[in-house]
């Protein structure tokens, strides 16, 4: 779950990561009131879950109330790389002396958190890491002992920052790690990490991704859950607890288990078809969940045919068959369904489908056969 900048900064503050004063705003009036409150010059920032806001004109300096009003009006409702701006953040303007970069992220390879620091912040750090790898300092943190002072010293001394910044940057990194762990973040990224003219160190941006699996222990973070940037099917699927990703083709896909669904996409593509979605019905799906999944798939008007590819472990094929039949009964669709059922209770499932004997139901016995069939039916 990605957080907007102002949400991330709220967490930063809670854990002692210094950030400039700022206030969120949803309307031009709120933005102007916030700007008046914070004082001028201030910065009006679009709050969207995508990078490149500055280049897109989503971040503007306002030196007085007139400018604040003007910028807020211009930015609200703006479209930034497909994301519409519904939310602003008004922040005190900072005088920039240096721009650094700092982050904590999971290193899946080493299975440890990785601390990252660079003096080349405020720019595309992926490019920095590629063209000048030495400029990106990285150290692993043993999660059982946590981020130690020596980690901070390594990062800062090796990056070669000035002596007077070693301690404040180190302290910021320690607080950032605390936020990373305490808030169950998968990523905390500060770019740029600012050194002001008065040699203060502040996080000027905040990119935070929270582990959705850990939300149960962060009731305060659940309200940050945003549906911004989701297409209607994705929103429907989330409401029903399904994993759905919209794609561009015309073949609806449903499977159980992410690996099998991905494999199904591949096989359909190889057979010459174009999937309309990725939908993982998950393990142990009951009939009701399957019915809802069918609704989600069919709500996409591009869908010309649907492939059900089920290999039951926890999932029982008879439940899937029952769910599908219920859905077809309710929706009354003529879209053809190719259904392949294997695994737990597959015989029972196949029997249910045979019994229903619907004209648009096409049972297939193998995954490859089913993929070929659905491509044929989708035309």
């Amino acid at each position: 779950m990605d957080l907007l900048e102002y949400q991330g900064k709220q967490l930063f503050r809670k854990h002692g990561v210094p950030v400039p004063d700022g206030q969120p705003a949803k309307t031009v009036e709120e933005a102007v009131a916030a700007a008046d409150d914070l004082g001028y010059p201030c910065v009006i920032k679009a709050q969207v879950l995508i990078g490149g806001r500055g280049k897109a004109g989503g971040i503007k300096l306002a030196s007085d109330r007139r400018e604040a009003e003007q910028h807020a009006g211009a930015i609200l409702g703006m479209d930034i790389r497909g994301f519409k701006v519904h939310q602003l953040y008004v922040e005190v303007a900072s005088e920039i002396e240096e721009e650094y970069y700092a982050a904590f992220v999971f290193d899946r390879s080493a299975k440890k958190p990785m601390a990252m620091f660079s003096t080349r912040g405020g720019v595309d750090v992926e490019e920095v890491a590629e063209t000048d790898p030495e400029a990106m300092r990285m150290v692993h943190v043993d999660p059982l002992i946590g981020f130690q002072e020596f980690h901070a010293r390594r990062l800062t001394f090796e990056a070669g920052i000035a002596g007077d910044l070693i301690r404040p940057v180190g302290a910021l990194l320690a607080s950032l790690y605390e936020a990373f762990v305490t808030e169950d973040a998968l990523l905390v990224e500060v770019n740029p990490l600012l050194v002001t003219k008065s040699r203060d160190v502040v996080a000027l941006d905040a990119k935070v991704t929270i582990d959705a699996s850990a939300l149960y222990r962060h009731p305060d973070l659940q309200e940050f859950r945003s549906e911004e940037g989701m297409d209607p099917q994705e929103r429907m699927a989330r409401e029903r607890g399904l994993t759905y990703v919209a794609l561009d083709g015309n073949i609806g896909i449903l499977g159980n288990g992410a690996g099998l669904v991905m494999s199904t996409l591949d096989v359909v593509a190889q057979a010459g078809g174009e999937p309309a979605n990725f939908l993982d019905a998950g393990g142990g799906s009951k009939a009701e969940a399957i019915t809802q999944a069918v609704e989600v798939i069919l709500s996409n008007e591009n869908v010309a045919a649907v492939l059900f590819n089920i290999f039951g472990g926890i999932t029982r094929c008879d439940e899937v068959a029952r769910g599908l039949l219920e859905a077809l009964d309710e929706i009354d669709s003529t879209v053809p369904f190719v259904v392949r059922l294997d695994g737990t209770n597959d015989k029972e499932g196949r029997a249910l489908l045979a019994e229903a004997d619907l004209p648009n139901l096409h049972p297939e016995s193998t995954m490859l056969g089913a993929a070929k069939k659905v491509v044929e039916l989708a035309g």
Partner: protein
Amino acid sequence: MAILVDRDTKLCVSGVTGREGSFHSLNNRDYGTQVVSGVTPGKGGQDVEGIPVFDTFHDAVTETGANTAMVFVPPRFAADSILEAEDAGIDLIIAITEGIPAHDELRVYNHIRRGSSRLIGPNCPGILSPGKANVGIIPAAFFSEGNVGLVSRSGTLTYQIGNELAGRGFGNSSIVGIGGDPVPGSSFIDVIELFETDPETELIVLSGEIGGDAEEQAAEYIGEHVTKPVVAYIAGFTAPPGKTMGHAGAIVSGSKGTAAAKAEALEARGVRVGRTPTEVAEIAVALVTDPT
């Protein structure tokens, strides 16, 4: 022989009194697995169709000699249950639970890894050694004893590939689902190392997917340490690139995590990669008929 679970497995199931837990415990027992006990705090003294239930793993180990644990409790309780099993001296812990917070997994991983217990999963379908023992949720009826060692990040995809192999007459020494979470307790490498030394295993099948660099690491390991033939499958060639917000992840991994990059890494080390589950089985047939 088989790896990890076999006739000597004495299983204790955490969450044995739950709906799924009891269903699969009994299923595993029906298959022939020695399910010697279960743990559900507060239900010590009860039993699940003859499987005695204890309040703690320590009691279960002391009383029933369990050497393997299966963790079936909800995510909120799973990390604690894994740590408890380890503390109680269980050798092999198989965590089925999906949705354990990543920081919990990280702590558990780094703790367990420095001790002597082995963790498989979490978020995995378990391990099946056909004809010997089944621990987890793999539908055993589809698989028979044989010489193919199968290791996979994905549950249902494992069944699919196993099924394709079975369709061509292959049986399995063991089928190991290592799970799809970012921090699996055991990696492809850990399992492949066991297959390499298992006399029954003659062919190893690795089933991977996009994300992370576990397949790339496995490729390197195979190139250096594995003498047995390996066939691989990678899911996700046509998957859309995930939306990730920051840049740190991309920098750290150093890998694109794409299916193409993984297939390339494996092929560079002499591992043949099937483009569909069916093709994996076909390659396996070719390798056995004409091993080169």
